[in-house]
């Protein structure tokens, strides 16, 4: 048998190793959003703190849309940082209260504070589905022209804000 062929398993091992190595550190639970580069989907929803109804036209970017719920444990640990963002950095944040009980949601805001400009009350979760939400917390970055430029799945903290979200927002402001 040809001696050179003996190198083949080794080469195959290296190639397979590289393919598998490129997958390390990737979170398979994170899905790409289909809405990147698209406008906020049309909706008409009432607010949590008043009976007023708003539509997608009432959202004014650049802003964040933060999907939260009182049943979501990570939302509790994320909330203080959102308070800080809105107070110190003057970031406009819209809340999307996703599939929550109204009383529980009000208690959540009452206890932890309200960093949101407006809180959309999405009790049946249909706006969430239109946004492709599959787990709270999720945060959408909306630019000046109300286009969604990024979706972050999971908690927003200082590291996520400075490394990921802020560059995306600055990118939009530079346009």
């Amino acid at each position, binding site marked *: *048998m040809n001696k050179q*062929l003996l190198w083949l398993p080794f080469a195959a091992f290296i190639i397979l190793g590289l393919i598998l190595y490129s997958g390390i550190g990737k979170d398979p639970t994170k899905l790409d959003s289909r809405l990147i580069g698209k406008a906020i989907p049309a909706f008409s929803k009432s607010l949590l703190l008043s009976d007023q109804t708003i539509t997608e036209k009432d959202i004014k970017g650049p802003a964040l849309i933060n999907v939260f719920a009182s049943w979501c444990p990570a939302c509790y640990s994320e909330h203080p940082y959102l308070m800080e963002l809105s107070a110190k950095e003057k970031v406009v944040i819209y809340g999307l209260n996703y599939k929550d009980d109204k009383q529980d949601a009000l208690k959540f805001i009452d206890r932890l504070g309200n960093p949101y400009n407006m809180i959309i009350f999405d009790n049946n979760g*249909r706006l969430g589905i239109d946004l*492709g939400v599959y787990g709270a917390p999720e945060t959408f970055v909306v630019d000046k022209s109300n286009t969604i430029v990024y979706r972050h799945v999971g908690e927003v903290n200082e590291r996520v804000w400075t490394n990921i979200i802020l560059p995306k927002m600055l990118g939009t402001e530079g346009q």
Partner: protein
Amino acid sequence: MKKLLVTFFILLVILPQTAFSVISVYQFDDPAKEARFNQLVNELRCPKCQNNNLADSNSELSIDLKDIIYEKVQAGESDEQILVYLKDRYGDFISYNPPVKPSTWLLWYGPFVFLLIGGFFLYRFQSSHRQDTQDQQNDEQQANSMLEQWAKEAKDQETK
């Protein structure tokens, strides 16, 4: 004993069906629509879970998606329309039947490539093996003829 066994097997056949009828909370007038609904929820994947179809998942999101699919099937939307609706929101991840496109070429064509590579090596191995047995036969023949030669020579010397 025989009766017990028969009862056991009858239960084995009946039980899964009753369990299924308990799970299905969606009422259809049209059996064709029901069949389409069942096919869709079996083929579609729950976005929240890593490896669960909508039919098997009881997560809040799966229940909502099943409700939506039910409404759409009842409203007479085609499978295609429903798939487009869901893919617009959750991407190809939602479907267990990924489309053929450059990023999925390895998935679709990879097995055939590996089959070809395997076939190539099998062919090479076989042909080199055949060569070996032929060589062996040649050697044997040579050895035999040499033995005959020696025997002949020995005989010749004896007669001398």
